């Protein structure tokens, strides 16, 4: 199994210890780890399991159940393109194809230069302004391929 650098291992340990007293803490712990490290490393699982007094299988089961938890380090920018019906009705499929070409990666992949990760997402609640895209937690509506390129160029510039 991969090992964590001591500093990251300490972060995981501290997060789990800080939150263990809360009711049903595991999702909270995983969210905090992902917020701190960008993902939930496999090597974090045994640490969390030990602190929360759960089996590794239980922790692994929760990490892998939820789409939101990443198990690999993300690119500098995470680009999520909505795939749900409302966005489909306004051309999400073509926008997705464009995004794949523009970034040179498929869903769940990170570009070789580490700048972008591309993810599918199922509804951003922006269905009256479809198609919708989220980049690093910022929401964009009525995204045309041209606007997508501009947003991604902005993102690249700010990294």
């Amino acid at each position, binding site marked *: 199994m991969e090992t964590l650098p001591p500093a990251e291992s300490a972060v995981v340990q501290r997060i789990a210890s800080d939150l263990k007293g809360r009711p049903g803490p595991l999702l909270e712990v995983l969210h905090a780890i992902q917020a701190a490290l960008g993902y939930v490393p496999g090597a974090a699982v045994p640490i969390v399991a030990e602190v929360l007094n759960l089996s590794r299988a239980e922790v692994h089961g929760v990490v892998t*159940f939820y789409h*939101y*938890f990443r198990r690999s380090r993300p690119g500098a920018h995470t680009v999520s393109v909505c795939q749900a019906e409302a966005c*489909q009705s306004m051309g999400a499929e073509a926008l997705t194809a464009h995004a794949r070409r523009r970034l040179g990666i498929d869903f769940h992949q990170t570009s070789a230069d580490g700048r972008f990760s591309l993810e599918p997402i*199922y509804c951003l609640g922006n269905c*009256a*302004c479809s198609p919708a895209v989220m980049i690093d937690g910022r*929401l964009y509506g009525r995204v045309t391929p041209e606007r997508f390129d501009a947003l991604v160029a902005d993102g690249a510039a700010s990294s």
Partner: protein
Amino acid sequence: MTTLVYVPADAGALSLGAGEVARAIAEEAARRRAAVKVVRNGSRGAYWLEPLIEVLTPRGRLAYGPVTTGDVAGLFNADFLDGGSHALSLGATEAIPWLKGQQRLTFERVGIIDPTSVADYVKHGGYQGLTRALSMEPAAIVQAITTSGLRGRGGAAFPTGIKWKTVLDQPAGQKYVTCNADEGDSGTFSDRMLMEGDPLALIEGMTIAGIAVGATEGYIYLRAEYPHALRALRTAIAAAHQARYLGSDVAGSGRRFDLEVRVGAGAYICGEETSMLESLEGRRGEVRVRPPLPAVKGLFGQPTIVNNVVTLASVPWILQHGAEAYASFGMGKSRGTLPIQLAGNIRRGGLVERAFGLTLRELLYDYGGGTATGKPIRAVQVGGPLGAYIPASQFDTAVDYEAFAGIGAMLGHGGIVVFDDSVDMARMARYAMEFCAIESCGKCTPCRIGSTRGVEVIDRILAGVDGERNVRLLEELCETMVQGSLCGLGGMAPFPVQSALKHFREDFRGRAK
């Protein structure tokens, strides 16, 4: 004198540039030494006009939209701070026809107040419902909810009062109020708008629920895709604590109610109530077998109310104005109002709150103005990814739970996704199965395996392999999933497929790749 300018901080408005517009207005005002205060309100829900900004003038609130940063200097030149005329002038906001005909009860303050301010909330009628509730016996509060006819707005439409009564009737002890804010259905955004635009209405509704059934703790289970709503809720909860509307002495009553937001992690199934409870407890969001009902044995094994955002946010209005007043809206067994969301390929999309009873046609054409692409509407999907596709021949159906059930459809959370005549209904059917396969919790076989087989069968039909036999197989598979699944995901994912087969059979012909 300082002029108030309202620029929405609603996620949808921000997605169209409202943040940049707010900044540009503040900067332009500073440059011109104009005394302007920019208030970040929620959205009025007219997304086709967003970013829609408003100016408070002696003639009331006047609207301009859709505004881009490039329009800002021109607006100042046109003296918009004094309601000056401009190409983007929309007149008095309340008089915009799209808004004027609405019956906003639950959404009465959304887009109007500053959602971070308890004082503004109270000034617009907030916390009167709680004050009333605190003067009543718990059973009388529950009775008021029952009399109002309020049914679960999350989609299942179960009578809210009956749920509350079940929790009230459980022996005293730790009970919980949980809010299902896992609004995952495509085409829906009313929960998001409410949480961002009037979060205190939800907080007040949950507090009233706690007082009614004897629960001292509440949880809001919010989906991870809503970071703006998360910030709005946390800000509002802190403000309510500060103003002593939450905590150990709610509004000076000596009663305790505490509230916490928990964030989901991108699992559609967690909108199912038992799966949501599992997730709140920190586990995989696998559906529980019922009984026991959550009202008897819910969160951490304790009696628990599970209600949707709009359901709970409707409670303060009902307590403030009376159950009969709420029940006087609507038709048949669908009482009150429904915040309907017009989404997808629609010219004037957004939120329309109206009493039950208006027709799909009125919504799609009078409010919606037809498709955004200008082509004819071919189909609409109502009620999210598990909702049936409805053809134009059924557009005279009234917005009413029973009328929708009568045509084999469901109203669900009130989201309507519009498709023009370029839609390929076999592909939409395939997507319904694919989505179910991606989001299945895996606990029961019909859903876990059936959805994957469903995608494969539709692929064979589209490839022209044994078309007729595979269509029959698909129909049987749908029947198995409907009858045999543990919860609504596998049990309803076939609805869009079956309705596509029924109304758009011609799309299921084999085709060349």
